[in-house]
């Protein structure tokens, strides 16, 4: 996109958002969307490590068929906390709260989000919710599974369910505030000339994500609150003794928590569109189809939640409807994958690190998505429900999809955020290590799940051991793969080569401003005159 801002004018001449203030207060009281993004980056990285530690313990326990590391009760707490932390405190905020926060205003040519104070508030709300979760760990953990199924959670569990419920309830509001800010910002703050169909697909994906956050999160908040009320005050909404229906809780919970899967994957898809366009030097094939497929996924995502409940006492007729609708979600997802593949066709592809993650995403998301169709089929699901097949499926989507996208985004925009380049060879190596480690961890789980290994058990028959050994071996490789970026990215902050405003020769308003950007992003509001990803025209000021 061409703009009236001349990047070279600023670079090297001093102040940017990182140097605009140094004290702790300048960070904790900031309303700058970029600084808030960094705050989120630090917080969710912490939670990723914590959630990862729980995963490590789980994998070590599963190395042998006997329960020799932890007791059954501790194991229940381990997988519950792993799920809770990873979903509510890492995956849901990950790309939106870090990269969405950082990039949306810059990509649309605005000085900040619509409500900067609300944005800061969302981080504080997130932090308070996180503190509750720390308190849960100190209070001895919680063992309901991240799904809080009643009546176990509301009546029988002896663990800190109440505290956990408050933590998740509060964290939900940070998600709502972020979504609200994005929706309003994208509607009202676009630069002159930046029409809806000139927006980067990253923005479309975040718009769809934000709609889910607005429409879904209040529902999970209220249903978790109901569990809390039932536990603490005995007001029984789901209590079978009163004729309450535990399956109703599952309805309420999955009304949010299925679309929440799309909160995790849609931003990642938005990242993919940016990466693939940039490293194939081509406009995304079928731009408007990819844009609308994001909205279609968001809307259809609200119509399919019952496929989590095929083996509950949900009506099988409702199950049939949900099963058919589930198949329909495959359509917009496939539209995206085919369009990305078509974009690559005839493109001049280069294999920089972010693109490596994009390749990883494409393969892993496709496997995750297709196995999702197995699970969405009413009859087959009865066989594989609550087995490791499900575990493998959603890890292919959430780790293989969402985290690949997250890492791709991190490597793509790292030079923009901090103005430094990381060592490309190390980064490429770690992307390959992560890909191999990931597949070795989770592919055996499809097999062992199909053979009948149920999830959430810490002991299992001897004949399943080989799969678990492979899986644990893969997890070790994966852990090493994740450790690499931590080291070289921090190293790059000090020793990395200066990035310059546009290290990838990419199109998009964010590449027209200096790296790191200044506090208000643009000296004057840019005027947009071309389509997104117009790689047929040379990047301004550069010889491509």
């Amino acid at each position: 996109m061409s703009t009236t801002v001349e990047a070279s004018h600023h670079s090297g001449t001093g102040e940017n958002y990182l140097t605009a203030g140094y004290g702790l207060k300048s960070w904790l009281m900031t309303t700058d969307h970029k600084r808030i993004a960094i705050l989120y980056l630090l917080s969710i990285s912490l939670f990723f490590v914590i959630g990862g530690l729980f995963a490590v313990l789980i994998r070590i326990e599963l190395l042998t068929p006997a329960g020799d590391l932890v007791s059954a009760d501790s194991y229940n707490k381990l997988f519950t906390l792993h799920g809770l932390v990873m979903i509510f405190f890492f995956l849901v905020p990950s790309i939106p709260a870090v990269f969405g926060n950082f990039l949306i205003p810059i990509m649309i040519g605005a000085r900040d989000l619509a409500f900067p104070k609300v944005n800061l508030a969302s981080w504080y709300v997130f932090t308070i919710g996180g503190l509750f979760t720390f308190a849960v760990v100190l209070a001895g953990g919680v063992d309901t599974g991240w799904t809080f199924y009643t009546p176990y959670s509301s009546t029988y569990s002896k663990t800190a369910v109440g505290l956990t419920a408050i933590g998740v309830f509060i964290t939900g509001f940070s998600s709502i505030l972020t979504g609200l800010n994005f929706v309003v910002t994208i509607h009202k703050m676009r630069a002159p000339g930046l029409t809806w169909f000139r927006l980067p697909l990253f923005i479309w994906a975040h718009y769809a994500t934000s709609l889910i956050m607005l429409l879904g999160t209040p529902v999970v908040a209220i249903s978790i609150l109901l569990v809390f009320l039932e536990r603490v005050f005995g007001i029984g909404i789901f209590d079978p003794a009163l004729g309450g229906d535990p399956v109703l809780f599952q309805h309420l919970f999955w009304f949010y928590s299925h679309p929440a899967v799309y909160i995790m994957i849609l931003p990642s898809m938005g990242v993919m569109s940016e990466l693939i366009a940039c490293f194939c030097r081509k406009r995304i094939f079928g731009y408007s189809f990819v844009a609308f497929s994001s909205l279609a996924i968001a809307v259809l995502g609200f119509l399919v939640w019952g496929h989590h409940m095929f083996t509950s006492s949900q009506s099988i007729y409702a199950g049939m409807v949900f099963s058919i609708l589930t198949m329909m979600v495959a359509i917009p997802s496939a539209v995206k994958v085919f369009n990305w593949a078509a974009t690559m066709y005839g493109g001049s592809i280069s294999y920089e690190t972010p693109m490596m993650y994009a390749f990883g995403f494409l393969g892993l998301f496709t496997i995750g998505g297709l196995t999702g169709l197995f699970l969405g089929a009413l009859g087959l699901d009865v066989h594989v429900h609550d087995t490791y097949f499900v575990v493998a499926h959603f890890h292919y989507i959430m780790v293989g999809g969402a985290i690949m996208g997250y890492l791709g985004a991190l490597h793509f925009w790292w030079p923009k955020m901090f103005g430094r380049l990381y060592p490309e060879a190390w980064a490429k190596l770690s992307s390959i290590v992560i890909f191999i480690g990931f597949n070795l961890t989770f592919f055996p789980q499809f097999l062992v799940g199909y053979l009948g290994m149920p999830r959430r058990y810490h002991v299992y028959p001897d004949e399943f051991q080989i799969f678990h050994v492979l899986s644990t071996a893969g997890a070790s490789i994966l852990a090493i793969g994740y450790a690499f970026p931590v080291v070289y990215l921090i190293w790059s902050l000090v020793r990395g080569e200066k990035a310059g405003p546009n290290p990838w020769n990419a199109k998009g308003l964010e590449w027209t401003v200096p790296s790191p950007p200044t506090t208000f992003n643009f000296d004057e509001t840019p005027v947009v005159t071309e389509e997104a990803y117009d790689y047929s025209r040379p990047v301004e000021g550069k010889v491509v």
Partner: protein
Amino acid sequence: MSEHSIPARIYYLVFATLLLLTLITVEVAFYDLGILTFGVALGIACFKAALVILYFMHVRYSSGLTGIFVAAGFVFLAIMLTFFLLDASSRDWQYQPDSSGFSMVRPS
């Protein structure tokens, strides 16, 4: 947004209508309309809510975007309720074999 302010008498008119409708909804509750009872109560409530949204909340005088946002909330609510009732209503249906194949019965 109301660049042009709405004349006060419209507020009073809406107010009077709302009170009247409250009276009506109480009154009709005492007639047994069978299956329609709930529909009538719901219909009146929706009409009252629409009056408040359109006039007190100025949506009638706002941009179409506001209208779309308001509608979106209620549409997704309707989706939720539809599936809840789909489940509640069909949960104890069963297929029973008979001479002509299978037929669907609802146990009493």
